[in-house]
C-alpha cells in the first residue's frame, strides 16, 4: 500500500479546567490515505473534534494541551514545532471546514475580502487580478452561481448551504492534501446535505485529497466513508472498513449504535434497541473498559483491565475483551 498522506500516532490531548487537567483524547492512532475518506464517529464529547483540532494545531491555548503524539504529513513530522510558519503550513496542507460556517466567517466583511485574504496568505506572488481570478475560480469549483456577485456579498446574505460552500472554497484555497470536515452537514437540511456531500465527493475525486469526515450520523458514514473509526469516551473503540463495520460490528458499542437507528425495515412504532445509561464523565472514567458500565457483556475483567485495540479480522481492529462473543 502507498505511504499514508497523514499519520497520527499515539495522540493524547486535553484541557486544563478549574477542576484540573482532563484528558479528552487518549492514545489515538490512525492513517489516512490519499483519495480516501476516513469517518470519525461517536457521540458528543467522545473527542472526535478535539483530536482533529489537535492535528490542525488549533487547540485553544493555553487551556488546550497536546500531551504527546506524532503527526506526520506525507512522511514529514509536523507535530513538534508550533512556530507561525508551521501553523501557516498546516493551514495550507490541511484544510478544515466546520458545522456552522456562520461562526467561521466574519459577518462584517464581504465574502470576497475573506476569500482574498486566504489566497494572499497562500499565494502572495499572485498580483491583484490573478488573485481575483483565483477567488472566482474557487467559488465556481464549489458550485456557487454568479461568483462575481457573491464576492461582493456579506455572509448573512447567503443561505446555509451557500455559506458552507464558501467555507469549502476557503479550505481549498491552499490546494490541501487533507481536508478535515467537522460535521459539515449537521446544521443543514437533508436536501442541502445531499448537495454538499455530492460536492465533497466530486472535489475529492478531482483533487485526490484525503478526507477526514467527523460526524455522528451513521447514515452519512455508510454512504460516504471508506474506513471508519468509532470513538467512545476519548478512545478508539473500533476501526474497520465501512462495509465490515456495518456488516460485522465487533464492539458492543458500535453494535448498539447501529441497532438503535430505525432502519427502513424496522417495524413501525416498535421499541428500538437502546444502549442503556449514559457516557461516563471524562473526569471520572472507570479504570477498565470505558464502556463497561453500559455493556451487557461486561464482567470483572472489563471493569479492571482496559482492552487494547487489536485485530479481530484482517483490516479490522476492536478494543473489547469479549468481541468473540459478539462474533458468535
Amino acid at each position, binding site marked *: 500500500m502507498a505511504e499514508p498522506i497523514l499519520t497520527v500516532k499515539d495522540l493524547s490531548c486535553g484541557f486544563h479546567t478549574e477542576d484540573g487537567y482532563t484528558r479528552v483524547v487518549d492514545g489515538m492512532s490512525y492513517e489516512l490515505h490519499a483519495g480516501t475518506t476516513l469517518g470519525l464517529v461517536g457521540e458528543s464529547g467522545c473527542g472526535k473534534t478535539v483530536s482533529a483540532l489537535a492535528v490542525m494545531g488549533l487547540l485553544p491555548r493555553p487551556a488546550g494541551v497536546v500531551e504527546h503524539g506524532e503527526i506526520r504529513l506525507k512522511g514529514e513530522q509536523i507535530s513538534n514545532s508550533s512556530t507561525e510558519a508551521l501553523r501557516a503550513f498546516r493551514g495550507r496542507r490541511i484544510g478544515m471546514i466546520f458545522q456552522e460556517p456562520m461562526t467561521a466567517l466574519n459577518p462584517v466583511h464581504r465574502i470576497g475580502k475573506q476569500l482574498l485574504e486566504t489566497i494572499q496568505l497562500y499565494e502572495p506572488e499572485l498580483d491583484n487580478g490573478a488573485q481575483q481570478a483565483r477567488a472566482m475560480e474557487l467559488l465556481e469549483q464549489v458550485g456557487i452561481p454568479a461568483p462575481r456577485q457573491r464576492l461582493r456579498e456579506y455572509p448573512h446574505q447567503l443561505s446555509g448551504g451557500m455559506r458552507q460552500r464558501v467555507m469549502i472554497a476557503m479550505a481549498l484555497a491552499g490546494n490541501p492534501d487533507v481536508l478535515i470536515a467537522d460535521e459539515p452537514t449537521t446544521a443543514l437540511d437533508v436536501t442541502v446535505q445531499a448537495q454538499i456531500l455530492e460536492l465533497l465527493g466530486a472535489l475529492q475525486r478531482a483533487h485526490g485529497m484525503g478526507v477526514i469526515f467527523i460526524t455522528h450520523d451513521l447514515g452519512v458514514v455508510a*454512504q460516504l466513508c471508506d474506513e471508519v473509526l468509532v470513538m467512545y469516551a476519548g478512545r478508539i473503540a473500533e476501526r474497520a472498513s465501512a462495509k465490515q463495520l456495518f456488516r460485522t460490528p465487533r464492539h458492543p458499542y458500535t453494535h448498539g449504535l447501529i441497532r438503535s437507528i430505525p432502519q427502513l425495515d*424496522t417495524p413501525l412504532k416498535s421499541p*428500538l434497541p437502546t444502549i442503556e445509561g449514559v457516557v461516563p464523565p471524562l473526569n471520572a472514567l472507570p479504570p477498565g473498559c470505558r464502556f463497561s458500565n453500559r455493556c451487557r457483556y461486561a464482567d470483572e475483567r472489563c471493569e479492571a483491565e482496559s482492552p487494547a485495540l487489536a485485530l479481530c479480522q484482517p483490516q479490522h481492529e476492536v478494543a473489547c475483551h469479549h468481541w468473540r462473543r459478539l462474533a458468535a
Partner: protein
Amino acid sequence: MTTPVLEVRNLTKFFPVRAGVFLRKVGDVHAAEDVSLRVHRGETLGLVGESGCGKSTVGRVILNLLRPTRGQVLFEGRDLSELSRAEWRALRRDMQIIFQDPMESLNARHTVGRILEEPFVIHKIGTSHERRIWAQDLLERVGLPRDSVSRFPHEFSGGQRQRIGIARAIALKPKLIICDEAVSALDVSVRAQIINLLLELQREMELALLFIAHDLSVVRHVSDRVAVMYLGQIVEQAPSREIYERPGHPYTRALVSAIPIPDPDRHGERIVLEGDVPSPITPPAGCRFHTRCAYAQDRCRQHQPSMETMGSAHEVACHRRRELPAPAA
C-alpha cells in the same frame, strides 16, 4: 369516524415584514398557507419539511402561542378561537409541547421538583404534599430517580433533561402533545431511549402526537401518518409506510432519496435538488416547488395544484402526480 383530537382547517399564518423609518409593512412572510390536518386519539402525525417551511409555526398556532391569520384550530371539535379565557385555560391542560432544547424551556434556577409541580400549581390541583409525590411519580415514570426533585436542570445530561421536559408535559394527563424537534439534538443512543419512552407513553395514555421534525428516518418510525411541508404548504400526506415506499410528490421523492441509509450496500438513487428554497416573502406563483422541480411544465408555473387523492388516505398536491415515473425502489 370519531372526532379527531386535533383538527386544523385551512390554517394560514402571515408575518408582516416592516421596513423603513416608519416601519411600514412592505410584505408578508407566508409562513403557513392553507394547512389542514387531523390527529386522532392514540395516533402520531409526523410533520416534516426543511427549515423555514412553516412546520414549527403550525405547532405554535395550534397552541395559541401565535394567532392565525386565517383558518381554524379545533380541539375535540371545539373551535379554539371561540373559547373564553377561562375555557381556554381549562383546555390548555389537554395540549402540551416538548421542545428541542430542554435547557431553554426549563427554568435553570428552579429545582426539578418545582418545575414539575408548577403545572399543578397553575391549575390549582392538589396540596403541596401531594404535588411533591406526583412530581416524584412523574420522574419515576420517565426513568429518573425520585430524588431528582431536589436537583437542578444543569445537573442532568441532554437526554435526562428531555425526560424532565416529557415529565412536565405529561403531568396534567394531556390528550395531545406537540413534539417540536424533541429528539433532534440528542445523540443516537439516547435518542432511541427517548423515542421508546414517547411511544410507551403514547400507548399508555392514548396520546395524540404531532411529531414535528426534519429527521425523516425518525419520523417514519414514530408516525402513523406523515405530512410533508414545503414553503408553508402541505404537499403530501399519507400513511407512514406509504409515503416512504411510494412517495408521490417530486419534493417528497427528493427528501426520501436524500436520507442517508446506514448500510454501505444500499445506495439508493439520490435525487439532488438544484438551488435553494425560494424566499417565503415572495413565494413562486403556481406550484411553489416548480422552481426546483425536474418535472415542471407551464401549468405548474401558472396554477397552484390542490391536494388530490392518490390511493386510499394518500393525498398529493401535484399536477403531474399521475404522469411521473414510478419512484426508484
